[in-house]
């Protein structure tokens, strides 16, 4: 097991190296000039050139890439072209909201989706099953920003129960923190509720046809025990896989949700940075995202051994 983990960790090195080169190259050839954006509408060409030189944007691709990658290896992601703040500082300011959103979203999604999926499988073909699947189709199909606006209008604006926007750090108390996240997290969770519920239902339907389930029922095991102990545990591997992919996908969902609910997370940071071509920030955030993706995949693979003792690496 230890050697497997080590091999997987070592395997991330070429992946991250490739991402570094790919992202840097992509940004290099992407149209757009941060110097022109920074200089403003009134700027003359001479002013733009002066800023470009000052920022080092006039240097060749190999020189810039070498300088950046050397810095990254030393833990220095550079300085934002626009704010002149260290990129690591900007990222550190944004990690907590995104991480919080990710955790609360997945907790809500799993807490709702798994029971719904089990219920739908148990009541297969009946009204409850169809109602849950209808909800799943809606959750899958309606854009999250539409759900966000509707929920914000209802729960925040009309009822005043939750804030319309903004993020309260955890350091100001768990309850204010959670309240600032409930709307965006539930909005984002609708998609994951839909997808996890569907996977849970499909897997459970297959498991519930198995002989050992019939045997358990024949022995008089309670239906709750049959569903949640005998069936659900055996259905867990595909569910965990989807949840793991879901965690990775939450990052992309955060881009929209953080904008709609004005959460100061990494999603908004990267959108803002892309729009103004703040290359050092874009490169660093994408690099971190890719690293997180690799890490999540590793954790998913390792979790299989816990869920299913037959799986060994």
């Amino acid at each position, binding site marked *: 097991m230890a050697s497997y983990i080590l091999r997987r960790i070592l395997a991330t090195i070429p992946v991250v190296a490739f991402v570094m080169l790919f992202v840097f190259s992509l940004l290099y050839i992407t*149209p*757009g*000039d*941060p110097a*022109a*954006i*920074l*200089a*403003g*509408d*009134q700027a*003359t*060409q*001479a*002013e*733009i050139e*002066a*800023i470009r030189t*000052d920022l080092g944007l006039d240097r060749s691709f190999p020189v810039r890439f070498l300088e950046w990658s050397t810095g990254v290896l030393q833990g220095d992601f550079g300085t*934002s072209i*626009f*704010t*002149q*703040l260290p990129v690591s500082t*900007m990222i550190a*300011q944004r990690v907590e909201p995104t991480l919080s959103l990710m955790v609360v979203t997945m907790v809500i999604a799993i807490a709702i989706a798994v029971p719904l999926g089990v219920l739908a499988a148990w009541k297969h073909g009946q009204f409850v099953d169809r109602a849950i699947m209808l909800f799943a189709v809606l959750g899958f199909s309606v854009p999250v920003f539409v759900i966000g*606006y509707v929920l*914000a*209008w209802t729960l*925040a*604006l009309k009822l*005043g*129960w*939750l*804030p*319309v*926007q*903004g993020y309260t750090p955890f350091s100001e108390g768990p309850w*204010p923190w959670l*309240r*600032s996240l409930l709307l965006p997290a539930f909005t984002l969770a609708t998609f994951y509720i839909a997808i996890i519920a569907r996977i849970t239902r499909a897997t459970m339907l297959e498991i519930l046809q198995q002989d050992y389930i019939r045997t358990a029922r024949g022995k008089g095991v309670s239906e709750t025990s049959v569903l949640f102990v005998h069936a659900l545990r055996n259905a867990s591997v595909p569910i965990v896989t989807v949840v793991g992919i879901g965690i990775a996908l939450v990052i992309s969902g955060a881009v929209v949700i953080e*904008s*709609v*609910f*004005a959460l*100061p997370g990494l999603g*908004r*940071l990267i959108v*803002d940075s892309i*729009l*103004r*071509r703040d290359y050092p920030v874009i490169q660093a955030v994408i690099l971190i995202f890719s690293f997180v993706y690799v890490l999540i995949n590793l954790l998913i693979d390792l979790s299989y051994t816990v869920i299913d003792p037959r799986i060994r690496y």
Partner: protein
Amino acid sequence: MIKRRTLLGAAAASPLLSLPAFGQTGDSKVLKYVPASNLTVLDPIFTPAAVSVTHGYCVFDTLYGVDANQVPQPQMAAGHTVSDDGLEWRITLRDGLKFHDGEPVRAQDCAASLARWAQRDPFGQALNAATESFGHADDKTIVIKLTRPFGPLLDAIGKPHSRPAMMMPERLASTDPQTQITEMVGSGPFRFIADEYVSGDRVVYEKFADYVPREGAPEWTSGGKQVHFDRLEWQIIPDDATAIAAIQAGEVDWLGSVLTDLQPILEVHPDVNLHRTDPYGVMHVIRFNHLIPPFDNVEIRRAVMKAVDQVPFLQSVAANEADREQCLALFPCGTPGVEEVGEGIINSLDIEAAKQAVMDAGYNGEPVVILNPTDIASIHPHGLLAADLLEKIGFNVDLVETDWGTVVQRRVSKESVENGGWNLAATNWPAISINNPATNATTRGLGDSGWWGWYKDETMEQLVVDWLGATNDEEAARIYLDVQNRAIDQVPTLPLGLSYRSGAVRADLQGALQGSVDMFWNIRRA
């Protein structure tokens, strides 16, 4: 009969029902403001961006401000004297001025600040060209020595928008003008709290206790800047609908800008008032590339201008009639000295006549590239409407729809369209920032060293020099009119009229001022 589950359910729900409206400010000492865009560049001399100017007026002060008639008034200055030959200006500082680091404001600081500003700002560059030195006689007296008379000197150093001449400590003002200043130490009414600044989310200021306001009522950027809040918090809300919801819910006090489509929601809201800060509005223009065909031909530019009906262009960015105004001139109507010299010229031809005029002018069918940013709501419709108009009058249009970042890069290309160049691009200017011959980049004829589009006109530049050197108001007004006529004759840029933006303020706030940007003095909670 009440069942146990019903009771439990009710008990569980009761805290939710009694939740207070979360996020409502409630704190009478904090003003919460949502700017129209994110504050990324803190240095208000480095960039002309409106949001940086707004920030600048919090942190910094100016030697002179302007009143509602755009007349310069002393602000940090106690007054000034001018030598008989008009070549030496002495500006005396008020007593008691301090920077946020506790140091006194000295003439040396102001001279260095003026010198840096004069290298970045177009009006400042015009002053710089006529200046021998920015110096000081003593700690309280700034001395500006000129090489030739410069009539609008106070207008220049008191300009209220797009890089106002803001005063900084000498150690900061000595920074290269091409390098941003990130340490925010000014002598303005608010102190910038660097530790709480999160670009893209939050900007925080505290009332500067040692600020010494002038006597008298505030007006635009002049007068007594009395602050009635201990703390000013900017919150960046990128989504317009969310910002509207936030002010309705009382989570924020002031929106810097309200999207025209969303104004009707706030117009009927009992707790929110719309507020128009800048009465002069925004001037919309389309810029020609003067270096390459077909718009290097003045006859073709004239034909296009004669075909332009400003109304649809204005309707596309301002839904309410009260929020838009035709302006048949290349200088913003409503600002002092501007006349609609384009009357009888702009929109004087119907489509067929304009088509004929374009052909007569020698257009030979080459593609016309229009750069159009899809992510800027106040510009994008103008690209579409321009493409439609030009196609109707016979142009071979290539509408390039892309994002703003790409537009600003391609816009500085002087190449032919086949090699990545362009012919037309729409943009807009705060009217107050182009309200005289020296600052109006859309009409200046500097050629290669000027604004993108690179309009070259030596006659125009001579008129600008003459205006700057005018020794009395009558002479200046006469030359200004000549400039306006020259501009409408040569069509360096296509004028599309004016629109007015509104912000929104909670109804319990009183005293929001008019000005070039939102300003946070005088306003108080009722």
